[in-house]
């Protein structure tokens, strides 16, 4: 896998939405005052007659989206994940999920790499909350190319609620666009036999880097891109556990309740093996440059490498 460019995943979301909407007149965009920041501007400029600005009112936007969906529209609302998954959680739960409506909720500025804005704007709990809601699908694409595919799949392949998580910073864009994206089907990006790194979001690139470094030290690491956190791809995880016997998970989210927890829920029941979790450990974020924060909160490829060595020791003890 090679880096083509550095692009924020929000750009992939925004362009994918606009391209899908060119073909699908039932798509309606709902703005929450940060339309440009979440890159819904591409849609709003191309389809002003299908874009409704609703202001800084996330609870209402969620209910309006539900009302539109009840009438057969496909509403897409997007704001920062801290607001689109948390300010409005009860509306997502009752108006959207309990009614099982095809509403797309974009969660922008996911993770600590939001940077200088600090903890209030860094969504670190959204996966945990969204994945616990019945009927909800949770997507976390690994780069801009995949974010483009993910929003299209959410619009065309689903008829139920979708939470789609994406980030603020420019991150490596590396996924070949001829690799199909299928909701619920994780991707094996690199094979390996000693352990498996399961990553989501832009930490997938860090996982690939970590695997390369491990390889040079004689450790063969498998890398799985878990772009769909719910419904989770049990099969690929159980196979990885059975074949490699050790798992490291990596995500830009709280360890508690996040993607790693979801993986552990599957493996502890069906194929237990030693695990290590890379993520934010029960703390708020803070201001700083994105890369400084990724270092400080131990979310880099070198941290994945360290966790890999630790989990291999536990595997050997078994």
């Amino acid at each position: 896998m090679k880096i083509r460019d550095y692009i924020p995943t929000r750009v992939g979301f925004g362009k994918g939405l606009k391209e899908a909407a060119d073909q699908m007149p039932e798509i309606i965009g709902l703005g929450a005052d940060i339309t440009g920041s979440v890159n819904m501007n591409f849609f709003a400029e191309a389809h002003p007659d299908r874009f409704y600005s609703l202001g800084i009112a996330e609870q209402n936007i969620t209910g309006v989206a539900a009302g539109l969906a009840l009438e057969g529209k496909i509403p897409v609302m997007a704001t920062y994940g801290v607001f689109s998954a948390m300010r409005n959680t009860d509306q997502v739960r009752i108006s959207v999920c309990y009614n099982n409506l095809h509403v797309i909720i974009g969660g922008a500025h996911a993770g600590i790499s939001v940077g200088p804005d600090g903890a209030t704007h860094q969504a670190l709990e959204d996966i945990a909350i969204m994945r616990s809601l019945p009927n909800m699908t949770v997507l976390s694409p690994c780069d801009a190319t995949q974010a483009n595919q993910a929003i299209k799949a959410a619009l065309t392949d689903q008829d139920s609620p979708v939470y789609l998580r994406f980030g603020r910073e420019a991150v490596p864009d590396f996924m070949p666009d001829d690799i199909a994206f299928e909701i619920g089907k994780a991707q094996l990006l690199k094979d390996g036999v000693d352990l498996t790194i399961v990553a989501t979001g832009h930490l997938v690139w860090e996982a690939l880097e970590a695997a390369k470094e491990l390889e040079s030290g004689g450790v063969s690491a498998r890398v799985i891109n878990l772009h769909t956190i719910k419904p989770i791809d049990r099969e690929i995880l159980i196979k990885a556990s059975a074949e490699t016997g050790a798992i490291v998970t990596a995500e830009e989210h709280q360890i508690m309740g996040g993607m790693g927890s979801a993986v552990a829920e599957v493996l502890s029941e069906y194929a237990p093996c030693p695990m290590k979790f890379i993520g934010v450990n029960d703390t708020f974020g803070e201001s700083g440059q994105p890369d400084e924060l990724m270092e400080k909160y131990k979310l880099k490829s070198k941290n994945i490498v360290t966790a890999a060595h630790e989990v291999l020791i536990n595997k050997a003890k078994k």
Partner: protein
Amino acid sequence: MEIRISVINSLAAAGSGHLGGSLGLADVFTSLYFKELNHKPENPEWENRDRLVLSIGHVAPIFYTTLAHCGYFSVEELSTLRKLGSRLQGHPATDHHTPGLETSAGSLGQGLSIATGMALAAKHNGANHRIFSIHGDGELQEGAIWEAAMAAGNYQLDNMVAIVDRNGVQIDGPTEQVMGVEPLVDKWRAFNWKVHECNGNDIIDILRCFDVVKEATNQPQVIIAHTKMGAGVVEIENDYTWHGKPPRPENVDNFIAQVKQNYHENS
């Protein structure tokens, strides 16, 4: 009268649920479903139907009872209220496929946003049906109501009619003691809504109000329906302790007798 009696019977059979609010709204629901709403009980998903969004899920008994009496399902089914496997969930739920139900409800403050979304969709499609929603006065303490009121006013959604059940009481006591919602008329006006008031326990006055609402405007409209919680059963009228209680089996005959007496005195 029959609808009030059905509400009392189904809640007594359920052994839990909110009696007061349901009785207070009996005249509003009767006026809507037997006169005002353009709907087809035999075809609940008819595209041109007027939508009714029940935002206060706890008055499900009067909602279900009215639906049954106008033919969405059998009156016998009302005795399954709140029981395992019933389509008549304690708070209305679309996943149980209740005929005539537009949206799940039970968490207060969400229905006006849903109605706003439906009204936007209708405008977008050039459809002529109207979107009614029913709210409690205590519910207006939820902030999201005012987010929705702002949006509906902003988009001049004149295809929306919100009805507020102004019975003045909520679970903890009188609304103005729990958290004052007055001045209610001024609040809605300030959000660019056209405001009407009626006696919500007088069908003639409710229908008069509905006629006024039909006059052209470029605003969403709200009807503040002044009701008595528990209306029809003199013994419990306006007694807030009856907001969230069902009648006990030993109350049933007495309450039904009061409904009948009240009906004959007023007809």
